[in-house]
């Protein structure tokens, strides 16, 4: 087992990984760009190494610097977190070549699953349902294949993910132009212009299955998560278990995920993502060969520490439980707190966090990566923290989370906190009527409702912070203050 782990990441996930590294009795090394020098993850680590880069996010993508930092700091393992280099096969290879342990799958599996076209083919090969699709480089054959599947279609980047480079095509006439634009986008974002198209499912649900493998063909699943509530193609509310899901369907999806992961001799943590159509058919979407943002909800219902499992597997310790030993209890919901303005198309916001008061209590978990006084810039992703709540039932988990959101104080930079609270109280959410278009469909109902008395209170709170108003309100001497408005 290694002794020192370098966390090649930042923000809330770096803090979360560091916590488990310490809990396991290991030492932690952080890396940071100058702009992150005061960030919490730097303070939490035992050692920190500064990375040089003109663009801050580029620092966390600098493979050679990171590996050099690991060497310099005496780290013998590197945990990549999510995003950044976590699904970069050549990085995984370089880490291994440097004699360090990469906490994650093998490079070839990363490469396989990173290529969406190859991944689909692999899934289909192993009996995992895939959506009817077209993968052709020739435009004519592409158009024919598209006709065969039928419209609407979803055009996606082969090397893509995270909702980028996707377009919905509803008629054959739109197809050529959409392909051209999608290919150009794919080239720009991922450096790979290959695209493919799948049947587009209306009002689909996004269900994913967490898996852990020991690399020798042993794979367990840790049940499913529902991640349908998305805006800008990004998840903002996730939960486990998925509501309104039949036992048969759950079973089938988890089995399919295990089948896929075992076939790949998967090692370490991964997530198999599916699209669930209203009619009950599910199709393989992609496999993420890393820890997911929303992993805490799985940890809550199964009472496990996934990062601890990752470290154990990477250290050669294998899986610590068998499938039969994993029995989900209760319900957990997570929401992603982002610096953005929901009332302005969720555009990302910047600013300085003036006050941060974190709600505490049973069944509440706050995974944050920011502190009061920190400036949020466009340099990094807009997600500031995750708030997760657990309860014996879904209704209770939702109530606990909504209340925790209300108790959370994170002001100085606009956030989606109040918006999330409204989502969690929406009757359709509480009824579990979820699909990826939920937030767009209910946009009007999710607008804020101003209560005049509270607006007055907010106005007053602001004025009482103004020295001029206070002087006028409190400094008038006697007897003038008592006489009040009077003229002789």
């Amino acid at each position, binding site marked *: 087992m290694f002794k020192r782990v370098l966390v090649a990441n930042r923000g809330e996930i770096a803090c979360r990984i560091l916590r488990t590294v310490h809990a396991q009795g290991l030492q932690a090394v952080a890396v940071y760009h100058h702009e992150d020098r005061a960030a919490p993850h730097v303070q939490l680590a035992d050692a920190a190494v500064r990375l040089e880069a003109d663009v801050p996010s580029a620092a966390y993508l600098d493979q050679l610097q990171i590996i050099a930092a690991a060497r310099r700091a005496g780290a013998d393992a590197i945990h990549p977190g999510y995003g950044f280099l976590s699904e970069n096969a050549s990085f995984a290879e370089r880490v291994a070549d440097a004699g360090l342990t990469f906490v994650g799958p093998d490079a070839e599996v990363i490469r396989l699953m990173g290529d969406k076209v190859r991944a689909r083919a692999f899934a289909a090969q192993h009996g995992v349902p895939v959506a009817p699709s077209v993968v052709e480089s020739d435009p004519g054959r592409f158009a024919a294949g598209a006709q065969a599947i039928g419209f609407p279609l979803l055009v996606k980047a082969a090397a893509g993910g995270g909702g980028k480079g996707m377009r919905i095509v509803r008629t054959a006439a739109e197809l050529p132009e959409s392909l051209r634009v999608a290919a150009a986008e794919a080239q720009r974002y991922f450096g790979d212009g290959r695209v493919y198209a799948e049947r587009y499912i209306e009002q689909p649900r996004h269900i994913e299955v967490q898996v852990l493998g020991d690399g020798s063909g042993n794979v367990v699943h840790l049940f499913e998560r529902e991640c349908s509530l998305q805006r800008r193609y990004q998840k903002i509310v996730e939960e486990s278990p998925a509501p309104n899901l039949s036992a048969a369907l759950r079973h089938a999806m988890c089995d399919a995920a295990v089948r896929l992961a075992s076939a790949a001799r998967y090692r370490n943590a991964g997530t198999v993502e599916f699209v669930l159509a209203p009619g009950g058919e599910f199709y393989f979407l992609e496999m993420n060969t890393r820890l997911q943002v929303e992993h805490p909800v799985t940890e809550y219902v199964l009472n496990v520490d996934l990062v601890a499992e990752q470290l154990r597997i990477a250290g050669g310790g294998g899986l610590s439980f068998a499938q039969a030993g994993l029995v989900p209890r209760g319900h957990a919901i997570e929401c992603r707190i982002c610096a953005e303005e929901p009332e302005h198309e969720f555009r990302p916001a910047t*600013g300085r966090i003036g006050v941060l008061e974190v709600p505490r209590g049973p069944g509440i978990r706050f995974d944050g990566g920011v502190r009061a006084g920190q400036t949020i810039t466009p340099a990094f992703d807009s997600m500031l923290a995750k708030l997760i709540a657990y309860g014996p039932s879904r209704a209770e988990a939702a109530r606990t989370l909504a209340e925790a959101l209300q108790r959370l104080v994170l002001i100085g930079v606009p956030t989606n906190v109040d918006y999330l*609270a409204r989502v969690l109280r929406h009757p359709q959410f509480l009824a579990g009527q979820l699909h990826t278009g939920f937030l767009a469909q209910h946009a009007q109902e999710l607008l804020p409702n101003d209560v005049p008395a509270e*607006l007055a209170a*907010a106005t007053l*709170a602001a004025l009482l*912070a103004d020295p001029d108003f206070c002087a006028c*309100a409190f400094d008038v001497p006697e007897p003038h203050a008592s006489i009040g408005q009077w003229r002789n």
Partner: protein
Amino acid sequence: MAQLKSRMPYRLQVNGRDAEVDILARRPRLRVRIGPDVYAVAAARERGEKFSFAIDGVPYHGWRCIVGDEVHVRLNGRTHVVRLLRHDPQRAVAALQDEVRASMPGVVVAVHCESGQALAAGDRLLTLESMKLQMTLLASHEGTVAQVHVAPEAVFERGALLVSFTRQERRNP
């Protein structure tokens, strides 16, 4: 009182909507008019991020932080943004400067603006050289250039008129 139109209320915006606040009385309670409604306020002067007071007997407490002209207030599980509209004394100062004159003798090195050009505060006007020092004159406020009175290599005396702006309209109160 007939002088109702002579009040000078606090003007602000709450969550983007205009609002006005007036202090009506201070004893026995601070009475404040916010928008069309009058409230009795029990509050003490307290600085800092936490606040607590009562309006019409209903207690409120929460947090606030100041972000430039805005105050972000969190109470009852909601965040509100209040922007105080203050007068900017620089506006009156800036509006005066319809003419840019040389503060010492020198020579024009480069001209960066032209007649009819609309400029923002901070835009470059001219680069001059005096006493072996070069300096670039910037527009002190937004405005439209009426005329540039010098050309490159022109020599000028102290007080010489360099650039003139279109005269601002006088505001009506």
